[in-house]
């Protein structure tokens, strides 16, 4: 009742007007909300909420995809955090990955979207395509296989040999100390994806009159304009971009498996998700894999909380 009163108060100026929904505004404003939500959320519950809940439940079992799962309590989690040295290596790599590629990728998305926004028409669409190309060309990172080929015909080796920086070819992806840094470079190259395009779209919706008002208020250069006008105006997109960035940076696996193999040399390129894939798709220890997924999930949720707090301070 209380809730209804509140809405009724808000809808007051509308209620007096004609129209199907307005005559019974108090009730219909809720009903119509739920009607609009229903199709999406029914599907969302079926195909996302239930599977996620099921996975969390499975993380407390010994499910191996053949036998009926047995409840094992915290066993998987204890094993994961205490007895699984490889998981700790994977976790360390993932955190390093996320801490380096996350913020840099995010800033790159923002910077390039912002510069591209200066252009107009076809040129702009073309530039967007060029920068988005690594994300649209499917497994475009395969080109790095050619660049990083371990013999002297690999592009990188060839170049370094020519310049006498190295004396013999380096097997990049099989040398422990190079694996992680090179994977980070490739990942950065792949940065301009979802966040980038949403920033491009977000920049479109910034109210142009704000810029003129800003110029009158004494904003002198483009950097001030960016910080005091553009960024605050596109905060919703910044938050969206951050979430997408977190989900990408913590879930790095594909490029590691494709370029360094799984398992990689001395696990130098192993990440939480490659570890998860190892248990989930190779060893069929689904209970254990679910526990890994749950830990990863908590890690991302925590990071997200932190990042959203930081983003609230943009433009202050």
């Amino acid at each position, binding site marked *: 009742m209380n809730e209804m009163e509140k809405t009724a108060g808000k809808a007051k100026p509308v209620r007096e007007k004609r129209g199907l929904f307005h005559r019974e505004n108090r009730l219909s404003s809720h009903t119509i909300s739920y009607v609009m939500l229903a199709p999406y959320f029914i*599907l969302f519950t079926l*195909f996302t909420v239930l599977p996620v809940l099921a996975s969390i439940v499975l993380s407390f079992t010994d499910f191996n995809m053949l036998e009926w799962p047995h409840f094992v309590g915290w066993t998987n989690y204890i094993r994961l955090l205490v007895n699984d040295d490889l998981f700790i290596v994977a976790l360390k790599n993932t955190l390093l990955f996320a801490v380096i590629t996350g913020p840099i990728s995010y800033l790159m998305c923002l910077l390039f979207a912002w510069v591209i926004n200066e252009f107009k028409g076809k040129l702009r669409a073309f530039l967007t395509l060029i*920068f988005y190309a690594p994300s649209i*060309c499917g497994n475009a990172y395969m080109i790095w296989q050619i660049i990083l080929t371990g013999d002297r015909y690999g592009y990188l080796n060839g170049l370094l040999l020519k310049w006498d920086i190295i004396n013999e070819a380096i097997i990049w992806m099989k040398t422990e100390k190079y694996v992680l840094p090179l994977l980070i470079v490739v990942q950065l190259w792949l940065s301009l994806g979802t966040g980038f395009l*949403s920033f491009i779209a977000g920049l479109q919706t910034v109210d142009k009159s704000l810029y003129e008002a800003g110029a009158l208020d004494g904003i002198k250069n483009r950097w001030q304009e960016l910080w005091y006008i553009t960024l605050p105006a596109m905060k919703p997109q910044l938050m969206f971009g951050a979430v997408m960035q977190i989900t990408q940076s913590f879930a790095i696996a594909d490029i590691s498996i494709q370029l360094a193999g799984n398992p990689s040399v001395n696990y130098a390129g192993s990440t939480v998700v490659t570890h998860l894939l190892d248990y989930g798709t190779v060893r069929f220890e689904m209970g254990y894999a679910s526990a890994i997924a749950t830990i990863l*999930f908590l890690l991302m949720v925590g990071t997200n909380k932190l990042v959203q707090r930081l983003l609230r301070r943009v433009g202050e």
Partner: protein
Amino acid sequence: MKKLRQLFRHRKNKKLNRSPAGNALLFFLMGIFGVLMAVPLVMIVNNALKPLDELFQYPPKLFVRNPTLNNFVDLFVAMNSSWVPFSRYVLNTVIITVGGTVGHVLLASLAAYPLSKHDFKGKNMLFSMVVLSMMFSWTVTQIPNYMIISWLHINNTYWALILPACSFGMGLYLMKQFMDQLPNALMESARLDGAGEFRVFFRIVMPNVKPAWLTLAIFQFQQMWGNTGYMFLRDEELKPLQYSLQQIAAGGTARAGASAAVTFIIAAIPIIFFLICQSNVLETMTTSGMKE
């Protein structure tokens, strides 16, 4: 560089707060990164045009020397020898991609609107659920997902791909973020004119967040186009183009030419879609005043 500067001088009246030094720095940076980013595009196009001896050349060269269309001829030959008529794969892909893209954009936007602009109980909880759902690893939810799809008896139908795609979390989140920016006055005035909520949604809200749903369409199209349906579709007659193209490309050395053509086509279709959507994103900017 000169051309760029001209471009800027031309628009000087429009853009405030721009210094030539700043322009130079930023565009220099753009140039360098632009070349790096364009490499895969360049490689895919060149590989598709390479004759076989160049494809097998070692070490590989980026640019083609004797361009030929033989690879595409090879691909068409391979297409004609497919198990079911090739047009069937095309039809399947059209159904799955259009269904998954239109369905998701529509349902996610429709749900994002009340989450953004209406006041009701449980709103924040629903929204956080969607955002959090994106952080759960997709690998482990696949098995429960499979069980649910079997339970609904939509296994081995188009629905097994389309319905889950409609409920991805990203679309709702993206649409809600853009709708949050719309001033409430915009909708109020339409309501005062007697428009119902669905009318407000289709006539006012959606046109004003056009850049958002065009961008979402790009993401979703890419997802759907890349889907081979290997988990849910058993019948050959239901499988999408992506599956059959990958089958052709997997034909080993004998199919190396066709395989390069396949890579080209797999990349070209989403790029065409991307360009159509992106240029429309720009149109909104020039034709409507958005929030002014």
